């Protein structure tokens, strides 16, 4: 009699733990905020609820912490507007009137691509949550005029041109959901290739594809060498696939359970992280340049301790952009122990970017890893990044209102950035610098070489 009871108990416990995981994501990630932006665009920028509206509210800065964080994030930094603003005077002179936040120029170049703002859509891979929404994500990014990343294993899992599953788009459909909605001057597609994609010559396929050819001609395509990802630096990709898929991919991936012999519903599928030395990386980057002269070359680096040497190689090899993904970056599936214990937090990656700037490396740097609002972007820019990549916010936004949700979210983010930059008395992104940011924490202030705000 006790066995069914145990089973029931286990089941309830597992449902509760699933609910707890969901709740912990809702508590630790600003899902509400993103949903409001995806629904209402710029109208979501003020903290009114249904109870307090303009004229009746008495609002101020939230001084609480939602939860204690284990490591410092960009939220430990604040922006420091001055009263004396020579750059605003310059703008005033140029315009012949007092400038507004709407006068901030957010147009920028990221890794060779023109973008309407210093934000890109981070590379998302083959997981169903990203792939299922990819048509909306691609269209939203294209219409907003920002570059997009296409992650690993999309073609290997979902088919390059023909769908491997009727209800899911192929790699090419996902790519064109983006390319077909570009305005012709903004944006660009950044395509990754895993070790397994390489086995199928994904990049060669794309490069020789007559349909993609016009976009290479216009310089709108980059290939991105992936050196790990935030959530699991040093590990390859992990996901689960059903048996039929597992059988067809056996030999291309590592399956702890052999799909031919072990009977399960879903199979763990691991891909290799890929082996690099400085020499191998250099050789690979040069081969890329030789093989695909009309593609731009990007690097995505996980939160590794040797980021700075990677940046140096990237600069020497004239790479178009390097993206550094912090350990709190989103993931479809990573071991809990990796999430907990592997890699540098996003802010620590930003420190390395800042060091690279101090060394004088004029690379295009993109920062990612749990970044989701205009404040994060402006702080990252102040410390040397050229742009930020967002991942999860777009998935939530697309879930709320499709491509329109993505555009709304970006509209809100854009206005946030304009407000913050103009508050600093600046109207061009290039003018935002270290002087504009301070730290709430003394150690962090020392590490980043910025003021400790309470020190006066």
């Amino acid at each position, binding site marked *: 009699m006790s066995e069914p009871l145990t089973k029931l108990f286990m089941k309830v416990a597992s449902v509760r733990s699933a609910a707890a995981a969901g709740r912990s994501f809702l508590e630790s990630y600003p899902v509400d905020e993103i949903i409001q932006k995806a629904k209402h665009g710029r109208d979501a920028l003020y903290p009114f609820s249904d109870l307090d509206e303009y004229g009746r509210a008495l609002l101020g800065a939230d001084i609480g912490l939602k939860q204690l964080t284990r490591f410092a994030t960009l939220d430990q930094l604040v922006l420091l507007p001055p009263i004396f603003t020579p750059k605003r005077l310059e703008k005033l002179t140029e315009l012949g009137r007092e400038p507004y936040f709407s006068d901030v120029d957010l147009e920028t170049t990221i890794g060779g691509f023109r973008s309407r703002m210093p934000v890109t859509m981070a590379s998302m891979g083959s997981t169903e949550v990203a792939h299922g929404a990819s048509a909306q994500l691609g269209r939203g990014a294209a219409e907003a005029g920002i570059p997009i990343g296409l992650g690993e294993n999309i073609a290997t899992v979902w088919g390059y041109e023909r769908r491997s599953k009727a209800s899911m788009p192929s790699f090419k459909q996902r790519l064109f959901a983006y390319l077909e909605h570009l305005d012709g001057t903004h944006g660009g597609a950044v395509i990754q290739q895993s070790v397994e994609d*390489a086995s199928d010559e994904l990049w060669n396929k794309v*490069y020789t594809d*007559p349909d993609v050819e016009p976009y290479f001609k216009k310089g709108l395509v980059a290939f991105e060498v992936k050196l790990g990802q935030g959530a699991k630096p040093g590990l390859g990709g992990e996901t689960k696939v059903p048996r039929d898929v597992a059988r067809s991919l056996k030999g291309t991936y590592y399956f702890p359970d052999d799909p031919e012999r072990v009977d399960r519903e879903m199979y763990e599928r691991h891909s290799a992280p890929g082996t690099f030395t400085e020499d191998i990386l*250099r050789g*690979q980057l040069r081969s890329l340049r030789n093989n695909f002269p009309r593609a731009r070359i990007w690097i995505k680096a996980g939160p590794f301790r040797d980021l700075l040497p990677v940046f140096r190689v990237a600069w020497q090899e004239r790479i178009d952009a390097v993206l550094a993904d912090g350990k709190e970056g989103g993931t479809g599936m990573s071991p809990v122990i990796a999430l907990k214990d592997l890699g540098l937090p996003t802010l620590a990656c930003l420190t390395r970017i800042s060091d690279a700037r101090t060394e004088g490396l004029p690379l295009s740097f993109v920062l990612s890893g749990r970044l989701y609002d205009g404040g994060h972007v402006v702080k990252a820019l102040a410390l040397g990044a050229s742009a930020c990549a967002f991942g999860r916010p777009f998935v939530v936004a697309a879930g709320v209102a499709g491509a329109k949700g993505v555009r709304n979210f970006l509209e809100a983010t854009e206005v946030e950035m304009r407000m913050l930059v103009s508050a600093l008395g600046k109207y061009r992104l290039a003018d935002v610098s270290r002087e504009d940011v301070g730290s709430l924490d003394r150690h962090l202030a020392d590490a980043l070489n910025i003021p400790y705000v309470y020190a006066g």
Partner: protein
Amino acid sequence: MAGPVRIPPAEALQRSYLTVRDPRMQRVLRVQAALGMTIREYLNGHGFVELLPPIIGPVADPGLRGAKQATINFYGREYKVMSSAILYKQMMAASLGKIYFFSPNVRLEPLETATTGRHLAEFVQVDIEEAGATYEDAMARAEDLVRTVIAHARGALGDDLVAFDRRLNGGSRPFRRLLYSEAVGLLKEHGREVPYGVEIPWEHEEFLSTLFEEPFFIHDYPRGSRGFYDREDPAKPGILRDFDLLYPEGYGEAISGAEREHEYAKVIARLRETGENPSKYGWYIDMLREGIPPSSGFGIGIERLTRYVCGLRSIWEARPYPKVPGVFSP
């Protein structure tokens, strides 16, 4: 040369069953056959063994500037159509020492190559490999072979050259030898900047070739600009022991060759430059682990040789049923 025809004549290519009956084309094909015979005579006379070329295999040469390999379904597994027989050349040089194939290759080149006047998606190269040879030996062999072929063309094929209104230079002096760095420097002098470490782009290669009256070598390419099998010079890290032979007068690349990386651990590291899992190269890796002798070799494209000897404006005039990248023809 009057300069290559840039735009492939798609309609004429679709009617190549007519083109091949044209008297001028017939003459080109006879010259081509004679050139092939001369090459065979030369190689056989120097102790090389002609072998049957491989057509398909589980892996092929990945070192192709942007081209994609053609694949076939081989009883449920994907096999490659030879993009070059390089891996098999090493296999056979380890057995017979001095070997060659007349090797048909397929490379699905990027569309941009359709207008270089010297790229075909299907072509034949004579693939030559010699165990124990250095790349200096291979360069000497390549020079001797090309010199022999040109001398033969000027003699036995003299009437044909007259018919094509073609005067062939070269043969009296040794071929010039430029380091890669010198070639890049020369281009720079003419306002054509090539960043160090990058293969010379097609249009610059053609321009460089117009500066010369006789065939010439470019050697010592930087690592990363060539396939993983070109050996890195132990005395000059970052420099490969490899070479190209270029035809003069704008005809461009004739031959690519190199000393081979043959030590297992070095090849594994170099293979990672392709971004692939070396396990994909299963049999080749196993063979290297067993051990093979050092070797050098090169490949000379038959269509490009024919084009040069006959003075044809474009490569698609230099073989029957040509397959120009992106053009659908018989």
